[in-house]
């Protein structure tokens, strides 16, 4: 749930001031990443979607994008299609370049320091995921590219009203109004937002744009706003908890001791192994490294997103594949996220955003799966029926 910070100043910022602050950041040359409502049908390639050629409501996608202007900032609090992961672990990323000179090889290193940037109105599940993945990125190897981007980024969350019945953030240790992994939290209130800065970076952002903020207690109607914020946040938590309630520790331990249980072993029969779930997931971080030759004796080593659901994920050079069917591969997904990672790092490798369930067109449903495991773990007598 929310983490108590030593100092937690609360400010009020009006709608206009928030947009003005965005403008100030952009004007200073700071990259601002925020949700943007993309009118799928406005682009010249509107022909792409048959939905654009029908009368009536046109599809809108929300995406995290680098803003070109403050007016683009979308504050509707819908869920962006892809998580923030792409801004910290891009879909593809150069690790180094190489050039051969006879027998010598020259390596072109890539920078590991990045220009400061701000994420505004991040979904709490997306920011929490970054804190969860920080653990593995600083485990036996310090991932400088991940860490460099994390250090350079100030993240301001926006409290979430809960998207739909596939959200379950409270079941996995976070909440719609959490600030885990972020530096500040915005909560919508009458006329604007309450903003809590929870880290030094968050406080620095407020200080740098102090003119935009009023202390929450100073602004008129402070008490009412405070109450409104607290109510909205509590209500959201109740809403999402109704989607799924599990005891994550029991689930973790049950998975750890029931590897061969039919419940776990038969989860993959519907799954096509496409990995769409991995690409939309904010906590999935597996990557492949490829050397791409781009000329005679020169090329780039890149890493790119990979998925444990792909058949070749564990294929050995010998030809042996320890996970050579979708059942063990899907079991691995559940095992890693809800048992192995918690045992190793004390965090569930999932923040309950629900994207995997929404994107899976084969009908794999993580809420259903976790519910079944929770029942097996806590009420085996019910599971047996």
């Amino acid at each position, binding site marked *: 749930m929310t983490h108590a910070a030593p100092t937690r100043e609360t400010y009020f910022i009006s709608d206009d001031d928030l947009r003005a602050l965005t403008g100030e950041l952009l004007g200073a040359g700071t990259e601002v990443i925020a949700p943007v409502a993309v009118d799928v049908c406005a682009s010249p390639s509107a022909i792409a979607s048959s939905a654009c050629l029908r009368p009536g409501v046109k599809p809108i996608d929300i995406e995290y994008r680098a803003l070109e202007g403050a007016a683009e900032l979308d504050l509707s609090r819908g869920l962006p299609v892809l998580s923030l992961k792409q801004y910290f672990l891009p879909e*593809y990323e*150069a*690790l180094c370049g190489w050039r051969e000179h006879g027998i010598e090889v020259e390596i*072109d*290193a890539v*920078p590991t320091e*990045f220009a400061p940037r701000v994420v505004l109105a991040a979904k709490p599940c997306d920011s929490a995921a970054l804190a969860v993945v920080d653990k593995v990125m600083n485990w036996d190897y310090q991932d400088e590219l991940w860490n460099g981007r994390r250090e350079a980024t100030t993240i301001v969350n926006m409290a979430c009203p809960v998207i739909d019945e596939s959200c379950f953030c409270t079941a996995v240790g976070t909440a719609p109004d959490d600030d885990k992994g972020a530096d500040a939290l915005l909560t919508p209130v009458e006329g604007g937002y309450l903003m809590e800065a929870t880290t030094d970076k968050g406080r620095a952002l407020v200080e740098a744009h102090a003119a935009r903020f009023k202390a929450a207690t100073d602004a008129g109607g402070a008490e009412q706003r405070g109450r409104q914020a607290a109510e909205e946040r509590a209500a959201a938590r109740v809403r999402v908890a109704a989607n799924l309630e599990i005891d994550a520790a029991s689930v973790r331990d049950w998975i750890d001791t029931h590897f061969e249980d039919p419940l776990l072993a038969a989860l993959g029969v519907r799954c096509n192994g496409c990995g769409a779930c991995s690409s939309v997931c904010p906590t999935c971080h597996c990557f492949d490294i490829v050397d791409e030759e781009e000329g005679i004796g020169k090329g780039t080593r890149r890493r790119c997103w990979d998925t444990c659901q792909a058949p070749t994920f564990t294929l050995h050079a010998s030809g042996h594949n320890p996970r050579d069917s979708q059942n063990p591969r899907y079991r691995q997904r559940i095992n890693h996220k809800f048992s192995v990672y918690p045992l190793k790092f004390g965090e569930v490798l999932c923040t309950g955003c629900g994207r995997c369930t929404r994107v899976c067109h084969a009908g794999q449903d993580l809420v259903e799966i976790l519910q079944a495991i929770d029942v097996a773990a806590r009420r085996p007598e019910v599971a047996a029926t």
Partner: protein
Amino acid sequence: MSDSIDINGAAAGLFEPRITAFVCNWCTYTGADLAGTSRLHMASNVRIIRLPCTGRIDPLFIIKAFERGADGVIVSGCHPADCHYTSGNYHARRRFAVFHDIMEFIGVDPRRMTFSWVSASEGAKWRDVVNEAVTNVRALGPFAAYRALAPEGAGRAAPAGPSAAAVPASAGAKAEAS
């Protein structure tokens, strides 16, 4: 004779296209050889890759040629009914018909791809195919659009990542890979 083709285009400051030709060993390669030994004048922009048969040519070869900087390609083999392996060129004909059409649908100018049947005795035809291909591709200009697909920086969503870095890349130094 096609001496009207200015094969010294480079001297005149013209763009010199780079053309990769995938040709079959038995007919076109031999025909090209004949063009050479006959000292026929032709543009020198073409790099030939010899394969046993046009039936061996995978569309991926052509895509790879464009990826690596070719401005145009030529695919050439034995005339129908003359394939050294009997039917390789019939398979190639269907495969490349479909490939040619779908590339045009994707927006690749079909004049960048030349397909021909050139037999072992058709040195002059090879010269004409080459000169025509070079003229056409020269007129189209470099295939910058394909090379513009080259990746820069990192990811679709973070194109400003490394290039916006405060620390410049240590290019040229024998640095440890990060």
